[in-house]
């Protein structure tokens, strides 16, 4: 054992000894929990999910309740983060906004990754003309700055929260397709795929049962990294006025409305920005940690 390991660092040997006889999931968890920032990220993400689920219980006020006698009251004990132009409680709106941000982060990212995975596997597995067509299509989408493409789609569909789902799903698939294609290209040369083909397993079964599960690790990392991207895109679109419509408590929209009164009531615009910052940081930490834990030898 020691003989074989003489080229490795002592810590690496320790880690391997400790991990002997464990499953892949346990190994990943072992490496993940050693990464402090990733754990902090995970805790914040879980906290955010709880806030989103319990929004109606936690929020001190109704996020839509207009009270014109109470415009722009600065942060105080009744309204912890102050009120906006309609006298609505900023904190409650941020709490409800967590729902929008998490859903907008998760659903379009999942849809675009599903599209990207299917196209990427088909492209890598079959190669040839299909491959070139899909990859040229991906090139086109990738050449478009994503915010601009989303803006064009929003122009066509009209500004609303639901259309953001469609816009972000259309915009995001190309990156996933490229990664999955590259992964597929290497996996389809493996012996077990050849064996499966030799005993007459159908192509789609090979793709689904043998190739797709092997793409899960990079896909999981891309998902955690894609969520903050989608949250940021939604906020940007809403900020530019082509996203969520008022009175939706979208963070981007809140900043956009608040910036008009930045100098008299800065709290309206500043606090939703903090929420975006925290959620994006948390997902980035989580994604970094997951990547290192799933594949410790993968370079950044």
């Amino acid at each position, binding site marked *: 054992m020691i003989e074989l390991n003489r080229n490795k660092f002592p810590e690496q040997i320790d880690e391997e000894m400790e991990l002997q006889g464990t499953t892949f999931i346990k190994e990943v968890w072992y490496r993940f929990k050693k990464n402090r920032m990733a754990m902090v990220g995970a805790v914040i993400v879980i906290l955010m999910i709880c806030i989103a689920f319990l929004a109606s219980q936690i929020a001190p006020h109704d996020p839509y309740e207009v009270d014109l006698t109470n415009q722009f009251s600065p942060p105080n004990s009744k309204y912890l983060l102050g009120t906006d132009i309609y006298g609505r409680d900023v904190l409650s709106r941020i709490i409800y906004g967590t729902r929008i941000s998490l859903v907008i982060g998760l659903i379009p990212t999942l849809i675009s990754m599903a599209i990207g995975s299917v196209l990427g596997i088909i492209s890598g597995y079959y190669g040839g003309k299909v491959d070139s067509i899909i990859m*040229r*299509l991906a*090139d*086109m989408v990738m*050449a*478009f*700055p*994503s*915010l*601009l493409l989303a*803006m*064009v*789609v*929003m*122009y*066509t569909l009209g500004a609303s929260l639901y259309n953001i789902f469609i816009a972000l799903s259309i915009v995001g698939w190309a990156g996933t397709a490229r990664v999955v294609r590259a992964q597929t290209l290497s996996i389809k040369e493996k012996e077990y795929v050849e064996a499966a083909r030799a005993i007459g397993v159908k192509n789609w079964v090979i793709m689904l049962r043998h190739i797709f599960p092997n793409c899960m690790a990079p896909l999981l990392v891309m998902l955690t990294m894609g969520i*903050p991207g989608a949250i*940021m895109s939604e*906020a*940007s679109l809403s*900020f*530019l*006025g*082509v996203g969520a419509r008022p009175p939706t408590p979208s963070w*981007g929209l809140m*900043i*956009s409305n608040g*910036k008009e009164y*930045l*100098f008299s009531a*800065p709290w309206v*615009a*500043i606090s939703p*920005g903090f929420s*975006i*910052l925290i959620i*994006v*940081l948390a997902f*980035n930490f989580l994604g970094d940690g997951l990547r290192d834990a799933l594949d410790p030898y993968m*370079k*950044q």
Partner: protein
Amino acid sequence: MGRYILKRILVSIPVVIGITIITFYLLNVVPGDPVVLMMKEHISPDVLERVKAEMNLNDPLYVRYMKFIWGALHGDLGRSYKLKRDVADLIVEAFPNTIILSFSAIIIAWGIGIPAGIISAVKQYSFIDNFFMGFTLLGVSMPIFWSAIIMQYIFGLKLNLLPISGFSGPEYIIMPAIVLGWSSAASIARLTRSSLLEVIRTDYIRTARAKGLMEKQVVFYHALKNSMLPVVTVMAIQVASLLSGAVITESVFGIPGIGRVCVNAIQNRDMPLLQGSVMFTVGLVIIGNLVADIAYSYLDPRIKYD
């Protein structure tokens, strides 16, 4: 080399054509009659028909696309519905402002990003490494529009150092350039760091150290050259993200550039203007990608096309 460049250019032609088709199709299937939109509802049916015929709106979509491309190749991108002026003229007017903003942002991004990356790599895991990496992480995690208004609040209102918005002098560009450059600086710093760390562990660097070269010489003459290769490719991605970021930065700071033209065109539902400015911007991104790829293959002759 010449073969590679030629191939690379040929490959981007279908991408350009595809993008014009996608953009044109997306923007021209929008529900609602543009003529009605332009002239409000008070319009007699025969006037409506005449204007539509003049604007070629009765032609099938592919004919209109062909006419648009033919015009675009001759520098004619149509007329703005709202501003009643040639789209090409509006773009030519706005473009220099976007260029000024983007170049100032690039200077900030590279000026901060590369030194921060080098220092972080040389002093890995030190306090200064953690500081730079935290600072740059903040840069990628903050929404641009938010950091923009925070800066307006602090430097414009509280400290009264810089003008809050507008575009009538060099001092107006400082804040927008910092806001826009910061997020790019972040990715450049991280890439420089990881790439330099990778190169520092290679055999030829060990050789350089073993023969007794000074650390400064090892880092700057031996390691840096090779570690800059991936950083150069990031230039391409930078062009795209800078132009996207410019859309937001220009709107917040009131800079009359291409990005603001796009946003205004969307708000006024001014299709020809949006179409022209979007295609122009995407064209720039494609040229940026092309230049970066060619530069990369020149710097690293191992790169071959497929």
